[in-house]
């Protein structure tokens, strides 16, 4: 799925990474707990979260993720946007709740941990 398709499905705004909308991603995960992302996530390219602090960006960077989606209308700070831009990550923001946003992506074919949708 293209990052641009994620934007369309989630009716999201692009906070940074406009140039990455044509990039393909193959899996995603959703969590507000960065400890769990670090413990359980493997090879997911997209993180959906309602947690807003710099550690979200660093956690995503450690996991080699390329796209962050903030849910529930959360907006990242400028410092977070700068960190993400430096690391070559796109940031999207949507008003949808985490469950709904994950569900929309999943039924449209963006899988989780290696399992088929």
């Amino acid at each position, binding site marked *: 799925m293209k990052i641009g398709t994620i934007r369309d499905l989630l009716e999201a705004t692009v906070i940074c990474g406009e140039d990455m909308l044509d990039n393909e991603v193959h899996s995603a995960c959703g969590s*507000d*707990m*960065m*400890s*769990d992302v*670090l*413990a359980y996530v493997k090879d997911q390219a997209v993180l959906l979260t309602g*947690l807003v*602090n*710099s*550690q*979200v960006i*660093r*956690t995503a*960077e*450690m*996991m*080699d993720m390329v796209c962050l989606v903030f849910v529930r209308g959360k907006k990242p700070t400028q*410092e977070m946007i700068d960190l993400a831009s430096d*690391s070559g990550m796109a940031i999207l923001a949507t008003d949808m709740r985490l469950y709904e946003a994950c569900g929309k992506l999943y039924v449209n074919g963006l899988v989780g941990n290696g399992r088929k949708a």
Partner: protein
Amino acid sequence: MSESLIFHFDVDGEDFTSAGQASVQVKKNLRRLGISPEIIRQVSIAMYEGEINMVIHAGGGEADVVVSEDKIEIILADKGPGIADIDLAMQEGFSTATDSVRSLGFGAGMGLPNMKRYTDEMTIDSVVGEGTTIRMVVNL
């Protein structure tokens, strides 16, 4: 690479926002050295967890990453409160982190188990009231 390369960092314990900066820098340095992405991920996740721990529990500390021909060593040393029961601390889900730390997305009791999971060797030396030194090795 015949000689070891050493990266040294002072980890600031005052500011949770900046926690993880050393790990990000290590990741960049290892990329420049041409280390494989999977090894880089192991090293940087293990170090990041350790760095977060040092900030949450110990008021900061020092981190050294030693890259040699056959392995990467990560040594994290702090002068924090120490770990009273290391076996207990190694259990998944056990945490002494406060609710304020949990609200920041950490403190699930996965840090130390995760560090062990992502490395080939891990030893913890800790003295209550004096501090903790963790040494991790990822083989190349």
